[in-house]
């Protein structure tokens, strides 16, 4: 069998078709879902946790659970919202664990001596061009939000989900999503407004 052909044939398939095939025992479909979702999920969880290694571990766990529990997925949900729900729940659990371990420091407010290490990948020429509000500053500000605000702003403004999709992912009413996004944005604005004095 020519696996390459088989692979590209599936490449354009809808997520729901892939998960259906995977449920029927086609493990290529699983591979494709991993390829399709590993980066988006990594970015989602990374913005949530602020730590690349932990984020990658959570995304691995997400796929492992998909692998193990594939029949739990029912067609009534979009696959993307389903997998984001799992990853989001695992990320929130991780945050709670950290809180319990008391390792989650929030005392890095605008520190210039960088007691908060972002992964190396963040240090790119592109980032340096963003001189005033860097990715680090954005991340630090996002980290200060409580999980419920953090989650909606990542999904809406970083990952570009619609309010309806966010409502499906985090299972709260549409109106609540909208007001939560608004409040999260206002919190960030409040936090960063002194830096935006000259640029907006």
């Amino acid at each position, binding site marked *: 069998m020519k*696996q390459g052909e088989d*692979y590209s044939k599936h490449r354009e398939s809808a997520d729901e078709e892939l998960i259906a*095939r995977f449920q029927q*025992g*086609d*493990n*290529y479909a699983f*591979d494709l879902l*991993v390829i399709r979702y*590993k*980066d988006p999920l*990594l*970015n989602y969880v990374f*913005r949530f946790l602020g730590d*690349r290694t932990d*984020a*990658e571990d959570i*995304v*691995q*766990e997400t*796929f*492992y*659970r998909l*692998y*193990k*529990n*594939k*029949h*739990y997925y029912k067609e009534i949900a979009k696959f993307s919202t389903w997998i984001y729900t*799992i990853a989001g*729940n*695992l990320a929130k*659990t991780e945050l709670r664990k950290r809180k319990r371990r008391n390792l989650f420091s929030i005392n890095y407010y605008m520190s210039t001596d960088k007691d908060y290490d972002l*992964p190396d*990948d*963040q240090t*790119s020429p*592109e*980032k340096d061009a*963003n001189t005033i*509000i860097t*990715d680090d500053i*954005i991340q630090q500000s996002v980290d200060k939000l409580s999980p419920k605000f953090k989650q909606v*702003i990542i999904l809406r*403004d*970083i990952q*570009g989900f619609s309010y309806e999709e966010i409502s499906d992912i985090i299972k709260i009413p549409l109106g609540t999503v*909208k*007001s939560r*996004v*608004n409040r999260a*944005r*206002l919190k*960030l*604005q409040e936090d*960063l*407004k002194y830096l*935006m004095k000259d*640029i*907006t």
Partner: protein
Amino acid sequence: MNPCATVQKYLSSYLDQSLDPQLRQEIDSHIQECPECAKILQDLKFLTSRLKNVQTLQASDSFEKNLRQRIIDNTATKEENNPLKTFSYGLSAAAILVAVYFFINTNPTTPSDNIISPAPSKSSIMDARMSEEITTNPDLDKETNTQMAVDDSIESKRLTDEEQREINLVDQ
């Protein structure tokens, strides 16, 4: 509620262009007269576009390899609790499990469920919830599953190196 607080409640919807025209007009006229709300709106515009452009990460090169290992390890953990863990085939349990995984990947029509997902581990809430949804075959107890895994892995041993490389799709 003072007018600024009311206006600020709607700024996101204003930015997302999802307000009805009348409310939109009211906010427009407030913003004309209120520098504070105008500034916040400007900041929000800047922030939303800035958030959209934060650098994106890519999963590490070893992502798929590690995922596979995780799947194998979790299956191996179950093996350890099983009296059938000694094999007469001269293969380590890990090697067999690797082979099983590859075997499954090359045979999309193989009913793999009984081999890889005998029962979810009982370590978390999510697992417990999910396990309710999973129907297990009553005829196949854990030992039978393990025996099947062993039998199938012997089959999979016949795969050539070249085939194995082809199976490793995610690395290509």
